[in-house]
Structures are given as C-alpha cells and as structure tokens.
C-alpha cells in the first residue's frame, strides 16, 4: 500500500554542521507534508510544513525541499546544535484522506559536541 519512508534510520553530525534528513513517499495523491521533531520522552512537535504546489520552504534554521517528480522530501537543518538531537518524522496528507496523516518511521539525529 501507500507509505511514507525514510532513507536512513540514524544520522550523526558534528555541532555546527548542516544536517539533511530525507524522506520518500509513494502516494501520488499526497498534497501536504509536515516535518515533526520528537525529543526523548516527549510527543512529536511541529517543525515546518509544505504544500505540493511548492518545492521549497524556509523557517528558522530549517528548510524543507520537495521533489514531486521523484516523490522525495528533505529537511535541512543549518548549523546543527545539540538541542536538535531528536527523532525526526515526515508525515503526509493526501487529498480525500479526511485529514489523516501518514507518518514515516523516523530518523534519529545525534549531534556530537
């Protein structure tokens, strides 16, 4: 069936480096995407979103890129900090899904000082 997946389950970076977390999706009807951050022992927290009519959106230190041709989504974190260490999930919402989100399995980002 349709699914949202991740290329890498773990990512380790040095403090100050840029991080890139990838996500692949297979549902051609997906029209809205969200990135969530989940710190240990906490619930997922909204980071940034993007609609399918866009290919890039920027927030504070984060950028989401969407390539609809290859059904690929990425989250870029600039100047990664220890506080960025968490699990990052992508989620997609498709037309007609009654506002349900389908989540990927997550990528664990570890920032080394």
């Amino acid at each position, binding site marked *: 069936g349709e699914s949202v997946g991740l290329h890498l389950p773990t990512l380790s970076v040095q403090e100050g480096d840029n991080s890139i977390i990838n996500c692949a999706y297979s549902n051609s009807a997906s029209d809205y995407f969200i990135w969530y951050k989940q710190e240990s022992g*906490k619930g*997922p927290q909204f980071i940034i979103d993007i*609609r399918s009519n866009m290919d890039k959106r920027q927030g504070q230190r984060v950028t989401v890129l969407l390539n609809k041709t290859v059904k690929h989504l990425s989250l870029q974190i600039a100047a990664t900090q220890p506080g960025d260490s968490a699990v990052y*999930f992508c989620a997609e*919402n498709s037309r007609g899904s*009654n*506002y349900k989100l389908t989540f990927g*399995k*997550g990528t664990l980002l570890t920032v080394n000082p």
Partner: protein
Amino acid sequence: NAGVTQTPKFRVLKTGQSMTLLCAQDMNHEYMYWYRQDPGMGLRLIHYSVGEGTTAKGEVPDGYNVSRLKKQNFLLGLESAAPSQTSVYFCASSPTTLMGAKNIQYFGAGTRLSVL
C-alpha cells in the same frame, strides 16, 4: 496554554485488566486522534474523531474503543489489555480545515503503558 494533555503519563496493567486513557485539548479543535508508537514502527493511527459525537477506525483499531462525548475530550479504552498493547500512546488534535487549509496535528506528551 496547555494544548493537548494526556492522563495518566504512565500505567502498568495486568493482562485482562481494563483502563481508559484521557485526552483533553483546549484549542477548540474539531479533529482528535489516538496513535500508538512502537520501536521501529513509527506512529500508527488507532482511532480518530472529526467532531463531537463521532469516531472512526484508523489503521490499528482492534482491541480499542473510543468516545468523544465532549469536543475537548477524546477517550481511549482498553477493555481487556493484552501484552501486545504495551506501547506509548499519543493523542493529537487539529483544527477544522477549510478547503486548502492545513492539517497540522498537535500532540500530547504521551502515555507509557505496560501490560504484563
């Protein structure tokens, strides 16, 4: 500004026992959701509600029941707990979405349930 509040935070049950997890949101959101999170499985939707008095099945509804008697509350019940229901449970809510609006779901802190 509480957002989404889940109670209890932790619970240990014996097989066959029942319990209810409570979710409360103070954002006047129409939509509410219950997920379970297991290692390597991501978030899986158990049940959801699109408004007061309505509920619907998600991806993994078996063994669970829900009720949405009040707009701000969404209850998740386990009638006869099984070890396979050991998990972390998350509640989320999202606002009514008009055409073209966004479905950002806001999550609670979770309930960690162990069934022995």
